[in-house]
């Protein structure tokens, strides 16, 4: 099985084969022999060349969250095509969308449609867990639409503001 994987901003091609009681995982062509054994729930013990690690792996929105000792990484996986160069690059063009980074309540709107804003300028104040957080404009530009109203409760990922 082949995956196109992205982690910490870099992309990798990862292939997994089951082999006896092991897995052979090739990362950009470099093979690792992984002895994987479940250790309760989403946890697993991995032994690679004698080096032992326990990891928790859970599929969530946006990919697989992997928790290791002292660190937490998000791995995005897509079923890879057989050939190379098939990675769908993420579009960075088009109108910028500001989405809710957490569930919470919209406390205040700091901008309105048509307004010109500077990069980093606050657009929306959200509240969660007794804290108010200002969500900034990702770049300078004009506000195209505000998709929420003050007092509204929103989930993670909800569209808040569209910029031209």
């Amino acid at each position, binding site marked *: 099985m082949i995956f196109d994987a992205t*982690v910490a901003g870099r992309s990798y091609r990862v292939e*997994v084969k089951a082999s006896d009681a092991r897995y052979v995982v090739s990362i950009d062509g470099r093979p690792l022999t992984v002895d994987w054994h*479940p250790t309760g729930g989403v946890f697993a013990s*991995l032994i690679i060349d004698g080096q032992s690690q326990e990891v928790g792996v859970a599929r969530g929105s946006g990919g697989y969250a992997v928790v290791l000792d002292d660190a937490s990484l998000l*791995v995005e996986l897509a079923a890879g095509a057989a050939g190379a160069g098939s990675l769908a690059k993420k579009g960075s063009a088009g109108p910028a969308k500001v989405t809710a980074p957490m569930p919470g309540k919209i406390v205040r709107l700091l901008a309105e449609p048509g307004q010109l804003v500077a990069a980093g300028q606050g657009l929306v104040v959200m509240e969660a867990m*007794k804290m108010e957080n200002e969500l900034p404009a990702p770049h300078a530009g004009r506000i195209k639409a505000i998709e929420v109203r003050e007092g509204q409760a929103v989930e993670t990922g909800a569209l808040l503001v569209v910029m031209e």
Partner: protein
Amino acid sequence: MVESRFRKILIANRGEIAVRIIRACRELGLGTVAVYSEADRSAPHVALADEAYPVGPPPSRDSYLRQDRIIEVARRSGAQAIHPGYGFLAENAGFARACEEAGIVFIGPRSETIALMGEKTSARRLAVKAGVPIVPGTLEPLGDPSRIRSEALRIGFPLMLKAAAGGGGKGLRLVATAEELESAAARARSEAKSAFGDDSIYLEKAIERPRHIEIQVLADQHGNAVHLFERECSIQRRHQKVIEESPSPVVTPELRERMGSLAVALVQTAGYVNAGTLEFLVDADLNPYFLEMNTRLQVEHPVTEMVTGEDLVKLQIRIAQGEKLPFAQADLRQRGHAIECRVYAEDPDRGFLPSPGRIIALRLPGGPGIRDDSAVYEGYEVPIHYDPLISKLVAHGHDRNDALARMRRAVSEYKVLGIKTTIPFFARVLRHPDFLRGDFDTSFVEMALAETTGQADGRIEVALAAAAIRAFLDRRQAREPSAETPLLASGWRRRGWRETAGGRL
């Protein structure tokens, strides 16, 4: 001098502190009554208590701040006393008074003492009376802009603006120059107004590279008061503590003795009764300045419990029952070193943004010298309505290095999936050379975050392998569903078997 044996206590709080208090009550053989909001039916404090009653909708003002309902539950359930924990009603003089009037013991100081210390300038005046040094500044609440300006010019810049009616970093502003004063004062007063319903502020000279060090005190109804040494609380984000330790790496025996005596003097001048904490700023020349007093249990109380061997919650309850302190100052000793990390449901990589949600998986640390005061379980949904503190992780060791080593070890064992937490942040701080040397002030977190980013590269490979194998198993399982229909509560078991089988193909 109430002398009354409690049989049942209502805990007017939630989360890890409610769990902490229920445990103390249980160890004392006392019955426990929990209250909960509609968002907290599945919270651990509800499951752990002997009795539990709903008090309203999720927002705190409709539930945990509803004094009338809480007192009514105490009456109906026959609780003789209410422990407020911290936050919510813990420093609300009106609630303490309402308890007194309802004939229920409020486990804390008398309502007048709460009011006296709650108004920060009256606390400053009291400190002056008790001979305790305060940060130079004003002694009265100020509202008039021209008066604020003239006092500011007298004190000099940089200076701090603070809300007179309450603490906790609300309405706090650092003003570097006279030009910034007017607008900063306006914002500070507006914040104070919305947080405390009172827009008066006071001024304090800004201390350079300050350390935040506090003294724990205990005072009974018989005039006895002791201090339980210091806690170092300089590691803060957003003016809130994230790591605390005791002893402080900079406090000398002389300074400890001096700060302890000052704290006891203030407590006795105030006629204070209960556990309490006096916050000080300590400047680079090790001069202490009294900041304010918290008339309640502190989040970081376990640090003091670990080094002194005392149980502060049990002592609060015994004091409220009218008992005398069971020890004198000379009986108290610091033993070893303790450190606390506050595990918050926050994303340290995104400016400590709140991260409520469901905990998919949880591995708690254990073993020697580790104490975990948590209030979550695997499958628990951390609600969006309350403080993001999910656990206080505490390590105790022979000395500071030993305690830090144990904390590093425990942090590496602590695994949470489903929400972001401050755990990876602690892993970084606990390896930061300045922190290891004990060389830091209240600006440490911002500085350290800016320095240390990025993940160790060796982990990327392991994470890729782990995610890819899990995805491989998920897909294979989807294609080859087992004959067994997964109907029952034993769903986990099914999964375990499948994966094992998968690994053996």
